């Protein structure tokens, strides 16, 4: 083989070797990148499934709460009204029968109101501010404690998932206050802050040693749920002074 052709053969072999090496590098990079994309997609799917599961749980809990409320209303309110209507309508006095008819109308109104709560369509229709007002009215109407609500901003047009988490969070916080803290006063405030809108739920009840009792309570669950919507949850409590819960909405 001549010197020139030997050089050409070496050139071709070396070029092929280098080209193969470069191709391998590019294929390896693309492969690693694709793997990462697949892993990321799987992670996102998992987060989405987790999020959907959390929302489903919240919906179930809200429905459970609603059913409990309806049961209580049927027993304490509608049952009483119907008994009263029965008494009035059983009377021979015309004005008593008239009162009986009025009572029946009240029962119809109450049943209509309750039937609306049976599905979760009300969640979409109601604003967080209105929901808080209703919840506080319900508590104060029982005479359990006084309530106060102030709002710097109207929380309307929130996405449904955020609304569900907030509604459940407010319900849970109020239930805890009533069940465990026995406060004289519950206050809720909606305010704007640099971190985003905040809902502050405060009571002047018994309070607790927050680092000790926080773990294992429903509050851990609430914190996780606030995380799933990109919000934040904080709790501070002092024995004898009460508890403050801050739900910060995502910006």
């Amino acid at each position, binding site marked *: 083989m001549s010197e020139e052709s030997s050089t050409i053969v070496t*050139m071709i072999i*070396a070029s092929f070797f280098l080209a193969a090496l*470069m191709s391998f590098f590019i294929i390896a990079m*693309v492969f690693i990148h694709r793997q990462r994309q697949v892993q990321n997609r799987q992670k996102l799917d998992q987060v989405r499934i987790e999020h959907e599961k959390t929302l489903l749980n919240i919906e179930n809990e809200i429905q459970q709460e609603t059913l409990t409320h309806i049961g209580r209303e049927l027993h304490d309110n509608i049952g009483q009204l119907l008994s009263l209507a029965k008494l009035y309508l059983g009377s021979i006095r015309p004005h008593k029968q008239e009162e009986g008819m009025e009572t029946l109308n009240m029962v119809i109104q109450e049943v209509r109101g309750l039937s609306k709560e049976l599905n979760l369509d009300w969640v979409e229709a109601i604003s967080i501010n209105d929901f808080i007002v209703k919840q506080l009215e319900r508590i104060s109407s029982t005479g359990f404690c006084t309530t106060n609500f102030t709002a710097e901003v109207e929380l309307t047009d929130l996405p449904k998932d955020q609304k569900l988490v907030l509604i459940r969070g407010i319900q849970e916080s109020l239930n805890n206050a009533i069940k465990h803290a026995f406060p004289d006063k519950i206050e809720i405030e909606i305010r704007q802050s640099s971190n985003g809108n905040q809902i502050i739920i405060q009571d002047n009840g018994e309070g607790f040693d927050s680092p000790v009792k926080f773990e294992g309570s429903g509050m851990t669950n609430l914190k996780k749920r606030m995380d799933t919507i990109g919000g934040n949850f904080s709790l501070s409590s002092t024995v004898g002074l009460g508890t403050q819960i801050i739900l910060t909405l995502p910006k």
Partner: protein
Amino acid sequence: MGSRFIQAFGNWYLISIDLILVIGIVYFLKLPNDKRANIHYWLPFLILIFPVFYENLGAYTNFNFEFKKSVNALLGNTEHPRYNVWVYNIFNQQIVTLLILFLVKSYLPIRSKRIVSWLMFFFIVMSFFIVAFELEPIYGSQPLIFSIAAGAILTSCGLYFMSFITEDGYLESNPLRLASFWQVSFILFYHSAIFLKTISQKYLWAELYDFGRSLQFINTSLWIVLMITMLLTLAAPSLKLNFENEPSHV
């Protein structure tokens, strides 16, 4: 004069890069103003211009011996007036290295950008001291400066590929449609090959002449491929090549 001119300027490599630059200028002028002001277009354009400029200057020094001799004398080299390696040292080893580092740096996330800035600073300071103290004169071979330059470029390419496989910004991208991916890949290939060639040059020319020539040919070809990659970046909008936008951190 004609044959000397053809001898100096008429080789396939010089003609190829001259042609690439002419096409590059046409496509660069066809770019809209906003793209022309974008670092990802004007830096590849500069990387096209400088090698063509210094390669032609090198060829001119071979054509015009008096000019070469006077510049050599100006640089303090009266002993070897035929040397023209200073053209390569100044323009390739210094300016083109810095341009390439700037280009790779422009594709990196902030923390990696800082590392490349330090590498550039280190390279400039070291080059200055090495030349100022005449450890490696500007008119002679500069293996130390070459090693620092190649090391800095290879490190910055490594940082690019690190961020490519770790940064979330690249998750939505298709690497085969990213101009930066091809540019940095060929920068990496070229500088790896030239690094290998340079460190083994003396041995190869003496012992494995064929292989040495092959490596030289491969390096020259890779440089042309790198120039074509830069040219395609400039030509992409006109040729309707669907390159993807660089990730948001860039």
